């Protein structure tokens, strides 16, 4: 430990620069906000609270573009998670969180603690977490380090969720070289609650107690928040470790104890919030700021795992599995007893005070005395500079890539083995997707579906994002991310309700990156408005770079939808021989950013066709109506790999085959034109179905009882081997993982 610097030494030696605070910010804090020089602890608090990770100082102006209101919104952005009304006095709660940087350094614990953090966000709202989803983006499976990252990250996600007894029901996994040094690990948690149990993270009422519950505070994760916001260089080993270690067992106890408190003892409780990034400082000052209260904390009361921790370390520690409560004066003892019955410690560490100061005492000294709002609300917003990336300016001049002659059958089998398309069973099988017995559709279909017990309803959920499209055109790519998520829900029979997101980008000080961020958010926002759904929560992860090489701009969309009659959910699998096959939506030559292009060209290029949002949304609605009316036997939206892959996928794990004739070229079977679906319909329902779909449904064939795939395109006829296809698709990722690099 370095000896603590005096305020004057801090001013002269500027250690805050290394902590991420700029000189301009430091001067603003000392001259305008405090009227004096901040001491060591205070400077540390400012550095972490004013980091992008905690303050969103650069992304905030962009995030304002998202629609966040609507008739179902009970809680929009700003709390632990957003809440939507689903009728019957119930609500669905969800949020997504990124843990990219911690996972790049320590993949198992990084992924595990990411899951732990997002779960706490959900139960801090008073909701019972009912499902987890993830969104994983890795480099190509051709290096030992990537294999290690995949194994450990997947194990970390499963390790935490499985132990908590929260099913991991869906997600996405893609592979591109840009994620090699900086994998993306986004996790989403969905909760269910009675509206009467809704909680907020606020501390108010002079004299009320601030209570700390859960794990003890250690030195782990000090500067985690600023570390998450700092550019990423190759890691080094040290003797000490600041890596946070997750304890899902502790979190399970914490979950049950907090739910008992929020559901049964609302008269004791004023507010509750989890300690996430920047631990105790962010949770406590946010709780005070939201209620416009003052707060005084006694840091010696904070349960500590290690001796000799400084005030700075106690406040900034990111030890996991901790919550902060504001409890009505006089109820401290019953709260302690409640947590004690779960084997957990609950300790009064401070009080809500009159005024608006944030005061910390440690070992007899007042170590901090600053206005609450200076940490939370007075942050200097930073308007980024924006420049269209030069690659896009050049792309406009280049000829469009079109696949020329290729061997269709060979390409078909090869496409099924591309890891982004191939079966993810080797991953999803290590997640408990069924615990709590509500999972109607688990991993492997377009969206996951859960029933809501004691109602006739269900919830569908999905995570989607395609960095390639966003890289080629951030605005259109942003629209596509939202539309793809909506298509996955609609295919499952659900009406989209709202989204959460993780915005994964490079260094926002790079004007090209900032432009990408802004444009893609614009696209996402436009799609949300067209769908009339709000963005109710989200997370921004910037500085996703290794050695100055940024990832594809990768916004992840987590979307939740409502199924009114759970008996009418839909899956992608063919059900009966004799069912007619329909292709919905027109197919054009869209290969820019497609899996086909990536496979054949080893890189992506070109321009995306513009999207008519109105028409897209109308198309989604028609499909939804068809599913809701019970006219479909199976529905699959077309995404990576286009129609050819969707056809194959819908036969896998069935005894059925296909007889298909399409007015498309061989290449067009792999085109990724958005807004299309593959739907099978029982003969008796065909008339009603085609009438409902008007001219949009093109009859392309029939489901047959043999395991065969007969395909006639504009140019040729093919007999494809479905058993071989399925085997290649299933074995692709396990084989790559086993192969020696």
């Amino acid at each position, binding site marked *: 430990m370095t000896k603590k610097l005096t305020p004057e030494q801090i001013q002269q030696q500027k250690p805050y620069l290394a902590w991420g605070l700029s000189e301009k910010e430091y001067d603003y804090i000392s001259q305008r906000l405090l009227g004096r020089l901040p001491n060591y602890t205070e400077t540390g608090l400012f550095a972490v609270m004013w980091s992008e990770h905690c303050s969103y100082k650069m992304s905030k102006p962009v995030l304002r573009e998202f629609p966040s209101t609507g008739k179902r919104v009970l809680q929009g952005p700003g709390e632990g998670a957003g809440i939507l009304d689903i009728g019957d006095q119930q609500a669905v709660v969800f949020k997504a969180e990124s843990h990219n940087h911690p996972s790049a350094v320590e993949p198992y614990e990084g992924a595990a603690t990411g899951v732990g953090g997002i779960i706490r966000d959900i139960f801090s709202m008073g909701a019972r977490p009912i499902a987890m989803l993830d969104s994983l983006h890795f480099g190509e499976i051709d290096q030992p380090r990537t294999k290690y990252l995949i194994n450990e990250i997947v*194990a970390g996600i*499963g*390790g935490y969720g*499985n*132990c*908590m*007894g929260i099913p991991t029901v869906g997600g996405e996994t893609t592979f591109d070289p840009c994620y090699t040094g900086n994998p993306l690990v986004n996790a989403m948690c969905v909760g269910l609650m009675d509206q009467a149990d809704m909680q907020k993270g606020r501390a108010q009422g002079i004299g009320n107690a601030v209570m700390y519950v859960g794990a003890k505070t250690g030195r782990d994760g000090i500067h985690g928040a600023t570390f998450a916001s700092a550019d990423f260089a190759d890691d080094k080993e040290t003797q000490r470790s600041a890596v946070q270690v997750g*304890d*899902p*067992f*502790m979190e*399970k*106890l914490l979950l049950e104890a907090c739910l008992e408190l929020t559901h049964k003892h609302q008269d004791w409780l004023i507010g509750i919030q989890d300690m996430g990034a920047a631990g105790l400082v962010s949770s406590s000052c946010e709780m005070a700021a939201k209620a416009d209260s003052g707060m005084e904390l006694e840091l010696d009361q904070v349960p500590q795992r290690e001796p000799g921790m400084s005030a700075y370390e106690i406040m900034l520690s990111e030890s996991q599995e901790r919550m902060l409560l504001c409890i009505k004066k006089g109820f401290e003892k019953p709260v302690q007893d409640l947590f004690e019955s*779960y*084997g957990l410690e609950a300790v009064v560490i401070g009080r809500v005070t009159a005024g608006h100061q944030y005061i910390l005492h440690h070992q007899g000294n007042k170590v901090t005395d600053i206005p609450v709002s200076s940490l939370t609300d007075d942050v200097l917003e930073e308007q980024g500079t924006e420049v269209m990336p030069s690659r896009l300016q050049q792309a406009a001049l280049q000829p469009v890539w079109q696949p020329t002659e290729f061997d269709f059958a060979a390409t078909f089998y090869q496409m099924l083995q591309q890891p982004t398309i191939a079966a993810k069973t080797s991953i999803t*099988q*290590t*997640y*408990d*997707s*069924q*615990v*709590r*017995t*509500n*999972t*109607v559709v688990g991993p492997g279909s377009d969206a996951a579906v859960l*029933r809501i*017990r004691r109602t006739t309803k269900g919830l569908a959920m999905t995570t989607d994002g395609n960095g390639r499209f966003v890289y080629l055109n951030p605005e259109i790519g942003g629209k596509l991310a939202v539309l793809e998520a909506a298509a996955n829900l609609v295919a499952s029979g659900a009406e989209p309700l709202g989204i959460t997101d993780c915005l994964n980008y490079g260094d926002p000080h790079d004007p090209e990156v900032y432009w990408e961020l802004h444009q893609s958010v614009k696209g996402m926002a436009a799609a949300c408005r067209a769908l009339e759904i709000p963005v109710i929560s989200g997370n921004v992860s910037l500085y996703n770079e290794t050695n100055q090489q940024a990832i594809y701009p990768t916004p992840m969309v987590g979307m939740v939808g409502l199924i009114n009659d*759970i*008996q009418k959910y839909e899956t992608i699998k063919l059900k009966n021989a004799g069912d007619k096959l329909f292709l919905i939506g027109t197919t054009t030559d869209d290969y820019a950013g497609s899996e086909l292009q990536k496979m054949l060209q080893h890189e992506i290029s070109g321009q995306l066709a513009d999207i008519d949002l109105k028409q897209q949304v109308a198309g989604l609605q028609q499909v939804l109506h068809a599913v809701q009316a019970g006219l479909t036997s199976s529905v699959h939206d077309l995404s990576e790999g286009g129609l050819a892959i969707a056809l194959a996928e819908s036969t896998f794990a069935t005894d059925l085959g296909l007889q298909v004739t399409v007015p498309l070229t061989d290449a067009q079977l792999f085109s990724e034109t958005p807004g299309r679906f593959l739907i099978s319909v029982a003969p008796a329902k065909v008339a009603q179905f085609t009438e409902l779909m008007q001219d949009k449904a093109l009859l392309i064939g029939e489901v047959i009882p043999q395991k065969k795939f007969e395909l006639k395109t504009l140019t040729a006829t093919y007999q494809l081997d479905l058993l071989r296809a399925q085997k290649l698709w299933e074995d692709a990722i396990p084989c790559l993982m086993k192969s020696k690099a």
Partner: protein
Amino acid sequence: MRVAVVVFPGSNCDIDLYEALTSVCKVEAAYVSYQQDNLAGFDAVMLPGGFSYGDYLRCGAIARFSNIMPAIQQFAAQGKPVFGTCNGFQILTEAGLLPGALKQNDSLKFVCKTVALRVENNQTVFTNQYQAGEVIQLPIAHADGSYYADQETLAALEANHQVVFRYATENPNGSLNDIAGITNRRGNVLGMMPHPERAVEQLLGNTDGLRLFKSLLAGQTIKEAAH
């Protein structure tokens, strides 16, 4: 019939058992905390799956010292039905109510999927509604489900027909003799890695577990009728 569903710190399939019993089978059930020390008024005891004590040390190793365990031992000694699935099975072996032990899966990974099981013994209070030799499908979800016992114990298990369920097509974890579920000598304590409580509703795609609960109820009626 009244069934106790025992809840240990870290249990997480407790609700699954409870709902299978109450919502689906319409049987009276109650959660019983690991801190309780008696089971008066219950006709059967069920130990749920999950991660008692985080699976720290060994799965089930710490839970077996809970306050409730002597009551379960006594309950079993009286010949009353005791059932454990997944972590419940692990706890029953750690407590010595069932022989052998459950090791880490050979794959070293957690595995969640549906597997085929053969009903090897349908003469138990838990399996009388199945056909002998019948192959059923049940979900598994565990990281430590590889059954191990020494040769002598295995031979005795086989000789006494204590192997009730065996993996039928693929052995997902490395269990010796493909063992998925066993009873004690007397047949009133059953432990199994698969989760019958996850397979009791058509909506969730599988009802092969339902007859395990129905078996218990059928046994009850027979006994009551004989009074």
